């Protein structure tokens, strides 16, 4: 790849990822050497901080656990302050394969998308999900379509890339609780262009995403509420 004249930042939120953060970050820096990496340690109580020191990677160390929204936003503020042209966010647990970043970046640069989502559902991928989870995702997708008129297949994906304009928006305002569906819809409502590309998700290296039926339904309801509110929220 020819030398990049654009500044690209990869934001990796990490909360208690001591077991895999080392491998995840070294893998990303290998695959996406054209970009700068910023790990956001979200007040981890385990050894994540020392792992980051060992990696000699650039990181933000949040003194308090803010949750995923606050952590990712810290990354976007950093990107905004340092004048980055594009920013990507990847989970710190290794679910997202960094090999897609280049393709996503191409879409941002050449196809004029404002945001690109690494999606599990645009095409059939081997990502196997529980029945409830699939219903939940379809439901949220439907709500967004209803409220904004745009079909987004994977609304909850935390694998996204954005351009400078969106970095600015996210740096000033980013929801704390269910950031992905919420921001996806806000971006659409602002008349921005979102594209999705199919990606294969890796199995989580560590940790388990636990989805009990009640949790799934609770999640669905809360996200729907957040979306309706996002629709009627005044800009300030």
């Amino acid at each position, binding site marked *: 790849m020819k030398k990049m004249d654009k500044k690209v930042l990869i934001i990796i939120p990490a909360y208690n990822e001591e077991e895999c953060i080392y491998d995840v970050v070294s893998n990303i820096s290998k695959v996406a050497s054209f970009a700068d990496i910023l790990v*956001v340690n979200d007040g981890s109580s385990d050894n994540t901080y020392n792992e980051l020191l060992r990696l000699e990677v*650039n*990181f*933000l*160390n*949040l*003194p*308090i656990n*803010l949750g995923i929204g*606050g952590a990712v*936003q*810290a990354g976007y*503020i*950093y990107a905004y*302050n340092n004048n980055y042209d594009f920013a990507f966010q990847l989970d710190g647990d290794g679910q997202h394969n960094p090999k897609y970043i280049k393709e996503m970046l191409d879409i941002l640069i050449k196809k004029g998308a404002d945001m690109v989502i690494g999606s599990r559902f645009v095409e059939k991928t081997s990502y196997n999900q529980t029945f409830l989870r699939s219903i939940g995702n379809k439901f949220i997708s439907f709500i967004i379509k209803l409220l904004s008129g745009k079909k987004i297949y994977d609304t909850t994906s935390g694998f996204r890339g954005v351009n400078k304009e969106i970095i600015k928006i996210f740096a000033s305002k980013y929801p*704390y609780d269910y950031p992905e569906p919420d921001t996806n819809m806000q971006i659409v409502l602002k008349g921005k262009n979102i594209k999705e590309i199919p990606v294969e998700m890796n199995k989580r290296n560590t940790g388990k995403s636990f989805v009990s039926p009640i949790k799934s339904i609770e999640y669905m309801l809360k996200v729907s509420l957040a979306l309706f509110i996002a629709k009627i929220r005044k800009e300030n």
Partner: protein
Amino acid sequence: MIYYFSICFAIIFIVFVILLVRNNKLDEKYSILWLIFSILVIILALCTKVLDKISSFLGIFYAPALLFLFGFIFVIFYIIHLSTVVTKQNKSIIRLTQEIAILKNIINKNDNDNDNDNVNNNYKDTEVK
């Protein structure tokens, strides 16, 4: 009797609020609403006729119940008000946390770059008493 009780309670409450403000345990701006509320309770308890009239207008047979209704409505609104205060503080805390992390990141970079003590000196200035 219930009116005397309400008046006593309201007076004790006003004294309590003023003491809290005096000892810096409560901001003035949060005390004002409580004070207004207590004074209203006293006025209503003194003007029993007014209370009676409003009650009969609303179809409440037991006039002091109106006093409780007012109190209850006020408390609900006040709790909502406090929720907005919490929301605002939460936002501030998140932003401050992010800024601290970013500042520490810059300080570490400066430290690594030129290994001088200036940065550390600046750090001490921010110490709070």
